[in-house]
């Protein structure tokens, strides 16, 4: 075929601006890899919310304690799915646990995930629910009864020392759980932060920023979920709990916004070789998702709203506060999703030659399409709904287990 014609056709096809390495024309990591850090961030953030109750004894948050743990768990269950669907050979996925390469953050993440699931979340849930399991196991019949009996692990001791032990173990696990949650999502940040080849990803602040945006999104998720659950169960919203969640959300948002600002200030000040292409990236390809989505709508607006509420809470009617919390939480969640997009997709839109950009041609259907990503974002909520039938039945109070009666308040 005429080489000139071939060249012309090939030049016309991909939407490349400037120069990119020939292998960089098509993006490798799709929206699935945007969903994955988002979901693990929600896991970590929701758990931190729950630990505020256990470890820091924030009484006002007790009503959402179990809900936060269950939310964290349902998102944890859904977390590996985007990765599995993205793999070229998902049937070989067990290799990552069988021959894990200790120098690879991705391999070690398999163990961090397993540790967090089993040693932290499941254990904490178990100790909190053990009392209820024993009671429900005796009362319920049929499949539910079998499941509850299984979960008691054959232990039916409900004596005072046993319940006190449950309480203490729960607290210990929460304490271990906080650094574990940081490790879980910090590690995802490190997966990006360790890539020195990519100047958008490979820096020291990446894991820290991921952790704080995870906390922010996790607390927002708990706000949204508790609003929806109470509304669905036709219960009054607990404004005291919402106020407290809003306060912690504000603090976390301040920390997160400061870190992200620091990242940008440092980049602009130090202005190394990559700054030109990164500035073009931020103001061009990522204008809507970064400047409008993540910065303005996802950070600045919630910051102003929540800040306003911190100062003038007493002057705002509870119903209006509810709406403002809902608005801030939703905006933050969308903003953090935009942040994941900016990191993952943004990092692949510019060339490692620092000379050009390519375009993300997002599929609609197909296992890497955005419909799949949407489905994987909805799935944890479905799982949560399912879990709530077993573990947060309507007729039970949402408070810290029946063991609350023997909890030492000191």
């Amino acid at each position, binding site marked *: 075929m005429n080489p000139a014609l071939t060249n012309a056709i090939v030049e016309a096809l991909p939407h490349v601006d400037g120069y990119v390495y020939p292998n960089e024309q098509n993006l490798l990591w799709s929206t699935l890899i945007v969903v994955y850090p988002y979901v693990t961030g929600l896991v970590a953030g929701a758990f931190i919310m729950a630990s505020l109750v256990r470890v820091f004894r924030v009484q006002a948050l007790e009503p959402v304690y179990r809900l936060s743990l269950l939310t964290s768990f349902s998102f944890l269950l859904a977390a590996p799915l985007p990765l599995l669907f993205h793999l070229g050979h998902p049937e070989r996925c067990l290799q990552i*646990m069988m*021959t894990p390469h200790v120098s690879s953050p991705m391999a070690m993440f398999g163990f961090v995930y397993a540790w967090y699931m*089993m040693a932290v979340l499941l254990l904490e849930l178990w100790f909190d629910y053990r009392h209820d399991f024993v009671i429900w196991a005796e009362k319920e019949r049929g499949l539910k009864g079998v499941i509850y009996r299984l979960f008691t692990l054959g232990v039916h001791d409900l004596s005072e020392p*046993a319940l006190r032990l449950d309480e203490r173990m729960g607290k210990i696990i929460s304490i271990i759980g906080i650094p574990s949650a940081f490790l879980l999502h910090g590690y995802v940040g490190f997966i990006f932060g360790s890539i020195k080849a990519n100047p958008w990803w490979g820096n020291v602040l990446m894991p820290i920023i991921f952790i704080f945006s995870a906390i922010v999104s996790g607390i927002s998720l708990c706000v949204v979920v508790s609003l929806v659950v109470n509304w669905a169960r036709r219960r009054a919203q607990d404004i005291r709990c919402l106020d407290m969640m809003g306060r912690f959300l504000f603090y976390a948002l301040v920390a997160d916004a400061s870190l992200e600002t620091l990242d940008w200030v440092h980049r602009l000040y130090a202005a190394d070789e990559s700054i030109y292409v990164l500035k073009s990236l931020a103001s061009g390809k990522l204008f809507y998702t970064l400047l409008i989505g993540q910065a303005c709508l996802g950070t600045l607006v919630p910051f102003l709203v929540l800040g306003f509420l911190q100062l003038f809470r007493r002057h705002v009617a509870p119903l209006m506060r509810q709406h403002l919390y809902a608005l801030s939480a939703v905006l933050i969640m969308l903003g953090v999703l935009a942040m994941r997009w900016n990191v993952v997709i943004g990092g692949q839109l510019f060339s490692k030659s620092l000379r050009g950009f390519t375009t993300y041609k997002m599929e609609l259907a197909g296992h890497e399409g955005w419909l799949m990503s949407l489905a994987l974002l909805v799935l944890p909520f479905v799982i949560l709904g399912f879990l709530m039938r077993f573990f947060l039945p309507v007729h039970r109070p949402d408070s810290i287990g029946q063991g609350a009666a023997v909890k030492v308040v000191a």
Partner: protein
Amino acid sequence: MRPFRMPPQILRLVLLTIGIVTSYLIARYFLTPPSFGQYGFFRGDALEEIASRQPVFAGRQSCDKNCHAKAVETIANGDHKTVSCESCHGNCREHVEDRQVKVITRVSCTRCHEADPARSTFIKQIESKKHYSGQRCTECHVPHQPSEVP
């Protein structure tokens, strides 16, 4: 002092943990490929598997063996001595294996000799539009002996 009795919850959990860890180690034993770790952190068999793929291009030495000795000598004494046979003639493996298979020259001389500002001047370059009009390069030039201009 009361003798220490492990609380039943803790005992069950410890047993469960031991069970999980043991199953993992056993699974690992069975599921790790046998040659893994032979030369490093990879499947040792892979080196042999990759090495045993079939080469496609025949290689310059294939043309020498009593078949094209004269052409090879001519080229080696001229300006094209660095050019390998398969550079211009393409993949000749089929021809090496079965002499009846003809080899076609797929590459035009302008591929290398078209004037281009990025090409260093050690290679002679022409602007094909100005250099000739419609003739074939071989009407005036001998590819195997480029310094000979009839």
